[in-house]
């Protein structure tokens, strides 16, 4: 290692390296200021608690406290459920839609636009639209169900329904977005393989299972990462629609961090929660890129 390094180094010209660093510097600066510095700071804060403006070193006590906190358990459970349901469903739906609108059909671009449309609307507008859809009695959904004589539950007011309602909304929003990635992926697939499969007499399902899906795996992995992190990044909708209620039934990790930091002003606890979120997302990314990545053919 020590011997090979200088030789490798000699392979580059100093000038080239400097140029590369100069070009990378802006991104590095932004990354340092807005990502690395806050991460270190949060880690530091997570060991302190503040009472009456005094900072006390609390060590791991604060972690212990958070890990035993009932609300934290509930929030985490909600978030895991949300991820487990919305990630596979929205990816599957996106793939289905992509394959569908990739084929030759009439009004194709109109359908594509319709599927992609939710991605274009601002988050806050989406939340307000769905708030109206879910309004009890005179909301769109209840009016529709009323045609069949069904009385809808309080979609956002009942603990058993609120998370489901949020999931439906999230899937509606995300599927169209992921569809675009799959569509791009589909269009770059080699046509020869399909022709060969055609000759061998493979049906459409077989073609999908043996060719399309495996060849799309790099896209799927990418989408998987985005979908998973998105499901942990939900704040705006909660803020508008439920504030995490009723009784924390729709509260999610990032919103909980927000309220701990900026409603309760408990920076120590919020930092602990942030560290936990960071570790979780890191673990997921490592799993995806370190484990799944090796099982994918590029």
């Amino acid at each position: 290692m020590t011997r090979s390094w200088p030789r490798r180094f000699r392979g580059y010209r100093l000038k080239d390296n400097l140029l590369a660093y100069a070009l990378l510097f802006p991104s590095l600066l932004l990354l340092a200021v807005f990502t690395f510095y806050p991460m270190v700071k949060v880690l530091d804060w997570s060991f302190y608690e503040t009472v009456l403006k005094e900072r006390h070193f609390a060590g791991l006590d604060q972690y212990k406290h958070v890990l035993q906190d009932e609300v934290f358990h509930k929030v985490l459970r909600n978030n895991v459920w949300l991820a487990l349901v919305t990630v596979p469903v929205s990816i599957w739906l996106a793939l289905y839609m992509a394959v569908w609108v990739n084929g030759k059909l009439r009004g194709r671009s109109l359908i594509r636009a319709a599927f992609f449309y939710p991605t274009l609307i601002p988050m806050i507008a989406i939340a307000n639209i769905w708030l109206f859809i879910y309004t009890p009695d005179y909301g769109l959904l209840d009016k529709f169900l009323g045609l069949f004589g069904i009385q809808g539950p309080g979609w956002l007011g009942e603990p058993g329904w609120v998370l489901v309602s949020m999931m439906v909304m999230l899937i509606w929003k995300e599927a169209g977005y992921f569809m675009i990635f799959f569509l791009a992926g589909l269009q770059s697939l080699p046509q020869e393989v399909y022709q060969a499969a055609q000759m061998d007499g493979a049906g459409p399902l077989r073609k999908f299972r043996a060719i399309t899906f495996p060849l799309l795996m790099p896209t799927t992995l990418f989408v998987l990462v985005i979908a998973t992190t998105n499901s942990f990044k939900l704040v705006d909708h909660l803020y508008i629609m439920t504030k995490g209620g009723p009784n924390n039934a729709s509260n999610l990790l990032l919103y909980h961090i927000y309220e701990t930091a900026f409603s309760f002003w408990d920076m120590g606890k919020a930092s602990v929660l942030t560290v936990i979120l960071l570790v979780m997302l890191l673990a997921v990314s490592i799993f995806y890129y370190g484990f799944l990545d090796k099982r994918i053919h590029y």
Partner: protein
Amino acid sequence: MKKLSLVIMVWMLLLTACSSGGQQGAAGNGNSVASADQSGKESQGSGNAEDEQPIELSFYFPVAVGGPITSFIDKLAADFHQENPSITVKPVYAGSYQDTMTKAATAVQGGNAPDLAVLLSTELYSLLEMDALEELTPRFSEEYFNGFYEAFMSNTKSGDQVWSVPFQRSTIVLYYNKDMFKEAGLDPEKAPANWDELREFASKLTVKDSSGSVSQWGLEIPSTGYQYWMLQALSLQSGSNIVNNNGTEVYFNKPEVKEALQFYTDLGRKDKVMPEGVLEWATVPSDFISGKTAMMFHTTGNLSKVKADATFDFGVAYLPANKSYGSPTGGGNLYVFKDIPEERKAAAVKFIEFLTQPERVAQWSIDTGYVGTTEAAYETELLKSYVAGFPQAAVARDQMKYASSELSTYQNGQVTKLFNDNIQSALLGEMTPEEALEKSQQQADDILKKYRK
């Protein structure tokens, strides 16, 4: 090497552009505009404010009730500027109460506090904990403070020190639809006076359609955001408040509070005169205005909106009594921040005095529906004639003698939230009222124990 130097040059350019832009931006936000504005005015004529330095105050305020509050505030600021040409108040609309608090507190921690702000009266201890507030006791006469209703003043104080001035204060009142009372065979001039009547009237006012689903509810008490406030009203009516006077102790598990929460949950789950589950704070007034419910508990802050939008005759009454009448106060106070220059503090105090003159309090109350904060305001011709034509406006004032301070503690956000959550879970039937309150007490004690000495 050429490329490298090019990149570096572009970089330097970018950096300088950014920094000068930043400076311009900062100056644009603050003094330069004010002084330009000011010098323009001075050169135009009068020149009467020659030796006074122009001062600009930033004033954060929230909007929490219906109506064009922003334009009222802008007008107040403009009027003040007319009277005091050297002071410009720049109102900054900052969202809900919660958003305004977030904004103010973030600014304080970033070292550029606003000069004054309207924040919930209950944020007192959170702000004290940040060491953000200027004490107001020495800045006003005792007589000045005595002009305010006692129940409003109690949320401005910690012990004997006064830290804020009552501004857009409210209390809970009962709104009822007189037309629906007539239809149900009730006397439209007689609101329910006690809990038994409330239950009885509400059940008469609950109407089911042919399919068996309820088309009109008897009563709605909101249960998001401020359910602790509603429960506090019911507890006060049962004879007990839920908090002490220096923010360190709560009494969530008293028998009176249990009785109150039992009543609150029973209305929906047992008596079926109120929708079961969670009722949105903001949709309850819409439900009332659109005729979905015959009565509602809500803040008097919505009075002007209901007056403007209701197409039917409606009444406003005291909240029904259990053992006595009772309601907590609510709403926002004016706070002055600590880390600003003395002359701006003095200017802020001047602005507060201006806002709390009787005429202005009266006009503000008429425009918004908030309760007039001083007795003097109700003695002005303006408010007298308004109350004569619209007697509903006097109810909140009359109820003031039964009013009490609102729940406000150290770590107020956290204490309120846990209490709110537990109340909701009782309303949803996940816990009994007894369990919900015992749990709340224990959780709150856990948080507050470090503030007790």
